[in-house]
């Protein structure tokens, strides 16, 4: 049995420890906001935050999250009360087909929370593990710039 924090709440899990965190979230816990795009850590669609850092949940055996904090898109906001960053993605071209969006948003959120620089190059570098085939990234980068303090 492992224990971890999921979206601020305590959780325990007693299934196979090598099950992918992605599958535990989607199948065992019903949190389908985390998406699967490539199953090999290349596309970033399955990004979640582990102790605040973006990780590919398709590469994380659930055993590794014992004693740690996991955040998924469901932690960020809801349709009734979206997070300002979610709202900005919606209003300023940050989402098109939407399949990369949860992972992209979580990555962006961690950049902002860490106090990332107001620098397009640094933002692009930080997002380089999250593929988007629709937007050309520019609207996404522009939205994030607006949330950076320095």
């Amino acid at each position, binding site marked *: 049995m492992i224990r971890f924090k999921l979206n601020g709440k305590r959780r325990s899990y007693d299934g196979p420890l090598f099950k992918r965190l992605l599958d535990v979230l*989607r199948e065992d816990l*019903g949190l*389908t*906001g*985390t*998406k*699967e*795009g*490539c*199953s*090999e850590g*290349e*596309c970033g*669609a399955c990004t979640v935050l582990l102790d605040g850092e973006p990780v590919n949940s398709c590469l994380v055996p659930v055993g590794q999250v014992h004693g740690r904090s996991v955040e*998924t*898109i*469901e932690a*960020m*906001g*809801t*349709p009734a009360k*979206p997070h300002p960053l*979610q*709202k900005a*993605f*919606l*209003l*300023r*071209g*940050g*989402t*098109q*087909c*939407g*399949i*990369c*969006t*949860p992972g992209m*948003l979580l990555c962006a959120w961690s950049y902002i929370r860490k106090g990332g620089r107001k620098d*397009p190059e640094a*933002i*692009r*570098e930080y*997002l*380089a*593990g*999250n*593929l*988007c*085939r*629709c*937007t*050309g*990234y*520019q*609207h*996404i*980068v522009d939205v994030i710039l607006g949330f950076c303090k320095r």
Partner: protein
Amino acid sequence: MPVVGKSVARLDGLAKVTGTAKYVDDLRLPGCLFGVTLRSSIAYGSIKGIAFDAAFPWKECVVVTAKDVPGQNRVQLLEDDQPLLAETRVMHPMEPIALIAHPDRATAYEALRHVRVDYEELDPVLSIEDSLAKKRLLRGEDNVFRSFLLEKGDIRAGFASAAHIVEGEYRVPHQEHAYIETNGVAAWVEKDGTVIITGSMQCPYYVLKALKPILGLPAEKIRVIQAVTGGAFGGKEEFPNMICGHAALLALKAKQPVKIIYDRAEDMACSTKRHPAVVRHKTGVDSKGRLLAQEIDVLMDGGAYVTVSPVVLSRGLLHSTGTYECPHVRARARVVATNTPPNGAFRGFGAPQTLFAVELHMEKIAKTLGIPSLELRRRNILKIGSVMATGQRLKESVGASDALETTVRRSGYLRKRAAHDRWNKDPRKPCWRGIGLALVHHGAGFTGSGEVNIASKAAVSRARDGKIWVKVSNTEMGQGASTTLAQIAADTLGVPLARVNVVTPDTHRVPDTGPTVASRTCQIAGGLVRKAALRLKEKPEETECVVQYEAPGAIHWDDKLYRGEAYGAYGFACAVVDLEVDKLTCEVKVRKVTTCHEVGKAIHPLIVEGQIMGGVLQGLGYALIEDAVFRKGVMQNAQFTNYTIPTAVDAPEIEVKILEHPYSHGPFGAKGFGELPTDVPAPAVAAALLHATGKLFCELPILPERIAKALA
């Protein structure tokens, strides 16, 4: 308050940013089995037998082979040459042979390892050249799926009067769509026997049409519903017909819901790609660079089955003369069969291939004549009154010159060109710099009589609570269709956007508005929505108005002679690419792309801009990094690790300017433009590389190793 021309919040956006949008893999279906596909491991040959390992617990599985198809074992599209499941013959690697479903996904995949297919292998045909040489006959008498000829004027007279004749050959490879959501579908059977299909798709009515003969059921007994679709780009135009058929067969046999969700490797290796092509040009020009004769030969690799290849070829051919007027044209196009996975629709649909060729050929002509390619383009550019190769006279909404001149001005093209020339003279600089441009057009809607033939329908209805429902079969796949169509309906009816809803495409709930392809949704479906809304406005007593497509004015097209109005309207785009090439590694860094797109009218400017930026980046990937490696017909790099698509770091700053030359038959003046952005980057990249290195790179992708070899 009017909303057309305003960048309102996307209708589909809130669910997507909160992770609550339900893609097919997010649907929870009680008792659902997971379906997998047994595929051929050889390129060409016959199936001698299929053996199931007796030690495996097959009782837990549902297995389907060609024998289980209740109706016709054919995927109906333009032709019905493609089996849903191979019977005795295999035509390409990864061809589906059998289907297996199991409650546990891992066990379903494990089951695949316990089936052995015995083949009698034949030597496959793997290239356009081998196919044309009839190394083996795969199709008809010459391996040619389809050919077209386009003629204008007298090509011989054109060449006879030419001061210069310039020839060139251009090659483009496969391109993978790389939608981030792989192909996926779920199917189940209702108590009354209705088969329900839901999944990631562009064209629910294509799926319905394909499933009727496969299942031997009428339309009332098959219901196709689009799930939220995570990107498509043409890759989910016709391909879902097959996977939907597979899921339906498994669900019927299992009497339980079945999901088939491809993993990335399977999706990349088995699904359609952009057609590889070889395009040859021979062009006669006068001493001032005016085009006199264009002789063009277009060859495309169709893969093993017809799919939509003839239509791709046709569009490729119709765009092969470029955004220019030439009095004498003879253009021939052929698409041939090979033992490789079938190629299909991909944003641009044949045009990126032929536009790359003609634009690079313009660079070659300019180089031969010693005049700037910008001048060469100006002297031949399409304008109102120009007559295209089909004889079509352009009457309105021609933004080619505006796109060219505005892009040149905004990008500082001439100034930067001179600055780069100075930079490149300094041998101490670590890189060469180059700036290049390309100009393209793209016909919106189906070719020729296509729109008249499919006779699309759309409906707008008014509910008792005052809500407006837009009913079309055109799907939202990220391109912003639902928001755009709602804006058109809202302003036409004069109601707030909040009152307008767009019904999820569902063959039991919406009429057939035709497929979501060919840059036709805004212009054609949007035009129908506007028409239906206008009727509804005129008739307050009615609750619903259904309208059908009628050709605007006197559009004439002769499908046999390929003469007439090929498209009702064209979008125009110009792009300037500014890049540098590392002298040591030959890596290319695109510094900036400046582009103007003339779209008639931007219903939602932010969505238009997003389409342009995304399309441009796909085009840059096509030009520089996307390299699908095929060996013996098998994609060797079917994964994002080594089939790389541009990341946020690879993507340059893209400066977009939208130009509007309204089209009188488009809703609020709008023209289709969704494919236009993917047409323009590759030739602009090649032109910039010509400027940077002095070399003309006539084959994509222009990888560092290709540059290094050329410069060695």
